[in-house]
C-alpha cells in the first residue's frame, strides 16, 4: 500500500485529529472575538453532524434537527440555571440533559415515522412540521421552572456559560478557553460517531439506506436501526443545543425558526453529504464566509444569501467540499475495483457447500416446510393469488411456472411478506407467519433471492456477505468465517475488496445468492435466479439448487423450461392466480391444457 492509499483510508480520523490539534493550538493565539465567533461555528457543525447521520448515512432528510437542537437548548438552559443556583457545575448537568432531551424527542418522532413505515415524503414533511410547530408554540410558551424563566417571545436569559473548575458562576472561561472546551467536545462526539458509523451498526445503517428491502430480507429489523440512529442523532443535536445556550447565555424561539433549520442542510451539503466530518467543514466555511463578509455570526441579508447558496448547491455542487476532494483523490489511487474486471467463472464446490449446509442444519435445526393455505391476494379488481394451497417440503426442488401475469411473483411476494395476504394463512415450519413482517419470516428460516440482483453496491463484496452472515450469527468472528467460506465458494476472493456495484450482472446474481446462503435458510425462495446468466452459470445454478433442496425447502420461479427440466423436481403451474396443474415437467409438457394456456389457445385462456 502506498502512502497515499494509507492516508486515504485513514483520512476520516487523521485529518480531524490534525484539525483538532491545530484548533487547540490556535485557541491560544487568535483574536478573542474570532475565537468567540468560531466557537459557534463548531456548535453548528455538531448540529450538522446530527443531520449527516440521519440523512447522509440513514437516507432520511430530516428537517426536524433544529427541533431537537432547540429543545436540547431550552432544557439544557433550565437545568444549567437551576444547577448553578444550587451551587454545582452547570455544564456537567446541562449538556447530558440537553442530549437526553434531544434523544427522547427524536426517539418519539422516529418511533412514529419508522414504526408506521411512512413514505420518505411523509417522513420529511412530518419532521418539518414538528419544527414549525415548536416554533409557533415556543413564541407564546411561558414557564417558570425553579430559578429559570422561559418568557415566550422574550426567551430565556442568564444561562450560565462555560465554567469547568470554579463553582462560582461569575468565573467562566474566556473566549479562548470556551473555544478549546467546545473543540474538545466536538472532536469527542465526532470520533465516537465515526467509530459507531464505521462499525457494525454503521454498516447496517448503510445497507438500510442503499436497499431497505434487502436489509430486511437479511433479517434485520430495519425499524430498530432507523429509530436508534435517529435517536442518537437527536442526542447529538440536543447536546449542540445545550452547548449553544451556554455559549450565547440566551435563547429565544428563533432557534426553532425556518432560517435556522435552513442552515443545517446547507452545512452538510457544503461539506459533503455522508462524510460526517463535512458538517464541520461546511459550518466553518459558511461561518467563516459570513464573518469575512462582515456579517459576523448573524449578518444582515444572511437569509437571502443562504437561500441562494442552497439553490446553487443543490443544482451544481451536490458532492460538497470533502466529497469532491475525496472523489478526485480516489481517482488517482490504484483502483481497488479493477479486480472486478478480471474475475473467473463461478464454480460451486459441492463438498464445501454440503459441509456448510450440514453445519447450518446442526446449528439451526432441520429444514422447515413452507405451507400456504387458501392464500388470497387482490389488487383492486385483479386477483393475483387466488386461494393457493401448497405444501413445499425439503427433498426435491419445487418450481413454479406459468405464463406472464399468472401470479407467480405475487404468490412468492405474499409468502415473503412484501404483500400482506388478504385471506388465508402462511406458515414456516408450523409457525403461522401470515401477518409477520419480512424480517420475522427471515428469522424464522426464510431466505429470499428476488428477481433483480439485490446487492449493496457501495459496500465491498466481502462486506455484502459479511452483513448477511452477521444478520444470522450476531457474532463478528462467526460472520468473518462464514463470509470467507462463501466468498471462496463463489470464486470471488480476488474481488473481495471491490465495490459490489462494479461486478457484472451475472456476478451480482451470484453474490446475491451467496448472501442468501450466508443466512443458512431453512426455506429458500428464488425468483428467476437464472435470468441473465450464461449457459455454464445456469448449469452451476442447477446443481446448486439441487444440492440446496436436499438440505432445505427450495422453491424456484422460472421461465427457463430447460433449467426447470434439469432441476428434475416437482412443478406447479399457476394460471390466473390459481394452481392449474402439477406434476413433473415431462408430464406437464404432454399436458394439452398447459400448452393451451402457454400458447394462448382458446379453451382455457
Amino acid at each position, binding site marked *: 500500500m502506498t502512502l497515499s492509499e494509507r492516508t486515504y483510508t485513514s483520512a476520516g480520523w487523521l485529518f480531524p485529529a490534525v484539525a483538532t490539534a491545530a484548533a487547540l493550538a490556535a485557541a491560544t493565539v487568535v483574536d478573542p472575538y474570532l475565537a468567540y465567533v468560531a466557537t459557534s461555528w463548531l456548535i453548528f457543525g455538531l448540529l450538522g453532524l446530527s443531520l449527516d447521520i440521519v440523512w447522509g448515512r440513514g437516507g432520511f432528510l430530516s428537517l426536524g434537527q433544529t427541533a431537537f437542537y432547540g429543545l436540547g437548548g431550552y432544557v439544557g438552559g433550565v437545568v444549567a440555571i437551576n444547577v448553578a443556583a444550587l451551587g454545582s457545575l452547570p455544564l456537567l448537568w446541562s449538556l447530558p440533559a440537553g442530549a437526553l432531551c434531544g434523544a427522547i424527542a427524536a426517539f418519539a418522532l422516529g418511533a412514529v415515522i419508522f414504526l408506521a413505515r411512512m413514505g420518505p415524503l411523509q417522513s420529511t414533511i412530518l419532521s418539518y412540521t414538528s419544527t414549525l410547530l415548536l416554533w409557533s408554540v415556543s413564541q407564546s410558551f411561558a414557564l417558570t421552572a425553579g430559578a429559570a424563566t422561559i418568557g415566550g417571545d422574550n426567551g430565556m436569559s442568564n444561562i450560565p456559560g462555560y465554567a469547568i473548575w470554579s463553582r462560582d458562576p461569575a468565573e467562566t472561561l474566556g473566549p479562548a478557553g470556551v473555544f478549546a472546551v467546545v473543540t474538545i467536545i466536538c472532536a469527542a462526539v465526532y470520533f465516537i460517531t465515526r467509530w459507531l458509523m464505521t462499525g457494525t451498526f454503521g454498516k447496517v445503517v448503510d445497507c438500510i439506506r442503499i436497499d431497505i428491502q434487502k436489509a430486511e430480507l437479511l433479517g434485520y429489523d430495519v425499524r430498530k436501526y432507523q429509530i436508534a440512529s435517529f435517536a442518537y442523532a437527536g442526542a447529538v443535536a440536543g447536546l449542540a443545543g445545550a452547548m449553544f445556550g451556554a455559549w450565547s447565555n440566551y435563547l429565544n424561539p428563533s432557534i426553532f425558526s425556518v432560517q435556522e433549520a435552513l442552515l443545517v442542510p446547507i452545512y452538510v451539503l457544503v461539506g459533503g453529504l455522508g462524510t460526517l466530518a463535512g458538517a464541520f467543514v461546511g459550518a466553518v466555511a459558511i461561518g467563516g464566509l459570513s464573518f469575512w463578509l462582515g456579517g459576523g455570526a448573524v449578518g444582515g*441579508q444572511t437569509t437571502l444569501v443562504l437561500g441562494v447558496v*442552497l439553490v446553487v448547491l443543490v443544482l451544481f455542487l451536490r458532492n460538497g467540499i470533502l466529497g469532491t476532494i475525496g472523489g478526485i483523490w480516489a481517482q488517482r489511487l490504484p483502483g481497488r475495483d479493477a479486480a472486478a474486471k478480471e474475475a473467473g467463472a463461478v464454480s460451486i464446490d459441492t463438498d464445501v457447500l454440503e459441509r456448510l449446509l450440514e453445519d447450518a442444519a446442526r446449528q439451526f435445526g432441520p429444514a422447515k416446510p413452507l405451507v400456504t393455505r387458501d392464500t388470497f391476494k387482490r389488487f383492486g379488481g385483479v386477483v393475483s393469488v387466488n386461494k393457493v394451497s401448497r405444501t413445499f417440503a425439503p427433498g426435491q426442488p419445487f418450481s413454479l411456472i406459468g405464463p406472464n401475469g399468472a401470479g407467480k411473483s405475487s404468490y412468492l411476494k405474499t409468502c415473503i411478506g412484501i404483500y400482506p395476504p388478504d385471506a388465508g394463512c402462511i406458515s414456516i415450519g408450523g409457525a403461522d407467519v401470515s401477518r409477520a413482517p419480512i424480517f420475522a419470516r427471515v428469522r424464522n428460516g426464510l431466505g429470499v433471492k428476488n428477481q433483480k440482483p439485490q446487492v449493496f453496491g457501495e459496500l465491498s463484496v466481502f462486506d455484502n456477505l459479511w452483513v448477511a452472515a452477521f444478520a444470522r450469527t450476531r457474532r463478528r468472528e462467526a460472520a468473518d468465517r462464514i463470509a470467507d467460506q462463501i466468498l471462496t465458494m463463489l470464486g470471488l476472493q480476488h474481488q473481495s475488496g471491490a465495490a459490489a456495484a462494479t461486478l457484472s450482472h451475472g456476478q451480482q446474481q451470484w453474490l446475491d445468492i451467496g448472501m442468501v446462503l450466508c443466512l443458512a435458510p431453512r426455506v429458500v425462495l428464488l425468483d428467476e435466479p437464472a435470468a441473465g446468466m450464461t449457459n455454464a452459470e445456469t448449469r452451476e445454478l442447477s446443481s446448486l439448487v439441487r444440492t440446496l433442496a436436499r438440505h432445505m425447502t427450495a422453491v424456484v420461479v422460472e421461465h427457463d423450461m430447460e433449467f426447470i427440466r434439469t432441476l428434475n423436481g416437482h412443478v406447479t403451474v399457476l394460471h390466473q392466480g390459481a394452481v392449474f396443474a402439477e406434476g413433473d415437467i415431462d408430464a406437464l409438457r404432454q399436458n394439452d391444457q398447459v400448452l393451451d394456456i402457454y400458447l394462448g389457445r382458446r379453451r382455457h385462456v
Partner: protein
Amino acid sequence: MEPDYLATVLLSSVSSASILLIATIGLAVVFGLMGVINLAHGEFLMIGAYAALTATQRGLPFALAIPVAVVITMLIGACVEVLIIRRLYGRLFDTMLATWGLSMIFYQLAVLIFGTVTPGIGMPQFGITIGRYSLAGYPLLMIAVAALMLAFVYGLLTRTVYGMKARAAIQQPEIAQAIGIESARVNTMTFAIGCGLAGFAGAVLLPIVPATPAMGFAFVVKAFLAVVVAGPVALTGSALTAIGLGGGASLTASFLTSVAGDAVFFVATAALLWLFPLGISASWRRRM
C-alpha cells in the same frame, strides 16, 4: 344547543376548510401531476397577495387585481420551473431543498421591498344573519370560490388538450413521450398553473389574510400536510383531507380554543399517516 348557533358554527367551519382548500389546490396540482413538492408554494401565495395589494393601491379594482396576481405568479412559476425544477426531475428531496432555498429568497426579497408590516385592504362589507348571529359574507363566499377552483382544475385536466397531455404524462411518462408529448413543456405549464393557483389564492384571500412576508410559512404548513396525507391521488385526496382536517380543526377551535383546533389538526394528521403511511389514496385506483 340551539340550531342557529350550530348552523353558524358549521358554516364558518366549512368556510375555513374552504380557505385551506383554496391555499392547497395549487400545491396538489403540482404534486399530483409532477411529483414535486414545492416548498415555496407559500411564498407564491405571498407574491399573489402582494401583487393584488399593489394593484389595488395603484387604483385597480380588487376584482381586476386578482387576474394581475395570477399572471405575475404564473410567469414567475414558469421561470422557476425552467431554471430550477427542470434540472432536478426525479430528485424529490433535492427539489424540496431547492424550493426551500427559493422560499427564503422570496421571503427576504419581500421584507426588503415591502417591509414587515403592510396595510391590509378592507373586507367587502356584506353579511348574513342566522337568528341572533351574523356572519361576514366574504369568508362564506370562499366556499363557492373553493368549489369553483376545484371545478376549474377538474375541467382543465379533463376537457382541454393540455389536461389530457398532463394526465398522460403522469400516468405513462414514457408512452406519452413516445407519442410525441413534450413532457418538459407540459411540466412548465403545470408548474406555472400551480403557482398561478397559489397567486390566485393569495389574492382572493387578501381581505381575510393580510399580506406579510411571513404569511407563507403560517399558511402552508397545513396545506403541505393535507397534500402529504392525501398521497398519490393528489387532487381528490387533497380536497378530502383539506376539507376533513381543516373542517375538523375549525369545529374544534370554535367550541374550544384555536390552539386546541391546531392540536386536533396535527394529531389527526399524525394518526392518518400512522394508518396510511403512504397517504390515504395510496391504494385508490383513480389517478386524479
